[in-house]
């Protein structure tokens, strides 16, 4: 169930004055069941990249393979690929349109040609899975808060039972608590149901804390690709392209500079706490 991008390039408005090379010879493999963090600046090509994974954009050159099949081969079923590779866009406002939350979540499964009962069962399951408060299931999606809208949007894609879930900055605009809750939920989906998760994020802390692998995009190319530890170990290079390391890494560096005997390649709060305790012997 892997996605393979083979030398994919994408050029917007090719042959006109505002031609933009958004992806430049990107080769990448996303393994089954992994949690991939995709980091990069605005305009680095992250969003363009993920839109290739579910056949929303056609590569200018190169191939995208899903389970070994070229998704742009003649006669390929793009609707099926889109249902298997679910993509949640950054703004839930772009997809919510129904009169109530539940009907909106039913939209995806209904498009798969499922019966009403089946679609509703899927919607029920997805909303449950997203921990969406029951008393709001029949509210208008437009009356929800930003965080709730986002959950409904994710549920809308989850209800199609994808094998891969791609989320474009799902934590943008959420408070720290909502952010953690959402990421924990995604981690749970990956762990318990074997879902492959691709998370686009601006936030180094999110990627460091949750992803198995981090891919850094810069100017349409893969700039780094490795475990979060490997990637953030090179945070000086990341800083040069305007990114950085998780905030705990900086704290540990400052502590080390102040003379405390702590490791500096620490990526998340738990490890940092352990390290500090070890240093202070408490």
């Amino acid at each position, binding site marked *: 169930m892997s996605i393979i991008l083979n030398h994919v390039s994408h050029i917007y*408005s090719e042959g006109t004055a505002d031609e933009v090379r958004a992806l430049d010879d990107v080769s990448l493999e996303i393994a089954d069941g992994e949690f991939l963090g995709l980091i990069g600046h605005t305009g680095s090509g992250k969003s363009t990249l993920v839109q290739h994974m579910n056949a929303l954009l056609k590569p200018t050159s190169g191939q995208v393979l899903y389970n070994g099949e070229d998704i742009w081969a003649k006669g390929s079923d793009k609707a099926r690929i*889109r249902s298997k590779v679910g993509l949640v*866009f950054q*703004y839930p406002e*772009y*997809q919510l349109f129904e009169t109530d939350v539940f009907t909106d979540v039913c*939209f995806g499964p209904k498009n798969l040609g499922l019966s009403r009962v089946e679609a509703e069962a899927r919607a029920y399951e997805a909303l449950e899975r997203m921990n969406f408060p029951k008393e709001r299931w029949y509210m208008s999606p437009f009356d929800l808060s930003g965080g709730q809208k986002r959950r409904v949007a994710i549920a809308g894609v989850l209800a*199609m039972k994808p094998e891969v879930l791609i989320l474009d900055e799902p934590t943008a605009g959420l408070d720290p608590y909502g952010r953690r809750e959402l990421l924990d939920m995604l981690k749970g989906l990956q762990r318990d149901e074997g879902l492959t998760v691709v998370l686009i994020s601006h936030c180094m802390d999110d990627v460091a804390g949750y992803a198995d692998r981090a891919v850094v995009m810069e100017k349409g190319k893969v700039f780094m690709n490795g475990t979060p530890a490997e990637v953030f170990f090179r945070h000086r290079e990341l800083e040069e392209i305007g990114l950085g390391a998780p905030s705990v890494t900086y704290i540990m560096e400052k502590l080390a500079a102040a003379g405390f005997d702590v490791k500096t390649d620490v990526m998340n709060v738990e490890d940092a706490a352990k390290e500090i305790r070890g240093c202070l012997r408490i």
Partner: protein
Amino acid sequence: MFKDITLGQFYQADSVMHSLDPRTKLVGTFLYIIALFIANDAAAMAAAVVFLCIAIALSRVPASFMFRGMKGIALILLLTVGFNIFLTPGVPIWTWGPLKVTAEGLRSAAFLACRLVLLISGTSVMTLTTTPNSLTDAMESLLLPLTHIKVPVHEIALMMSIALRFIPILMEETDKIMKAQMARGADFESGNFMKRAKSMVPILVPLFVSAFRRASDLAMAMEARCYSGGEGRTKLKPLKYGRGDVVAYIVQIAFVAAVILL
């Protein structure tokens, strides 16, 4: 999908036409259109063609751009020419069944085709060398006398420039909404007319919601900056006539006079 559509076909270049005041170009185009309808003999038409060619040459816009707009009216052009050739009463010079071609028909078809082509390319010269925003400015400035009869000229101009400003934004947004719904399995291409019309709902609802939200945000932002309408408001780039504009006006008036006399 919408990346290929350009609105207000402004072509960036550094030319005499570009540097003219937008009011001059607006009035000039208006005069040119009037002249086209006054002209009803070959000499006047030829003068109009020459005039336009000079204007195109001065604008430094590639001629291919000028005639790109022609594709859109090709069908209308064909129909009007057809109707004029076959349906104008007069002396028939060729008949075939119920169809007859008259000399008068040929003449009026030729003039009409000429007029239409000149009309479209003439206005293209204006839109290709003037940004939509300066056109709106020009319109506001030219219509200003109407404020005396209580026409809200400034507000109309403001509405126009806001609408122009938002078209690319809403296009981009439509594109994103379509993709978001396609990711949920929406299908906009198959099915009969009713089914397709219904499949537009998942696009239109988010689009309208977003348009209203943007409108209200914009209104709020304008109020926060104490916007209070047109009275006493100055411009960042006030329109100013230069020497070129005086020359352009003289040439235009001379041209219209020539067409009337010819």
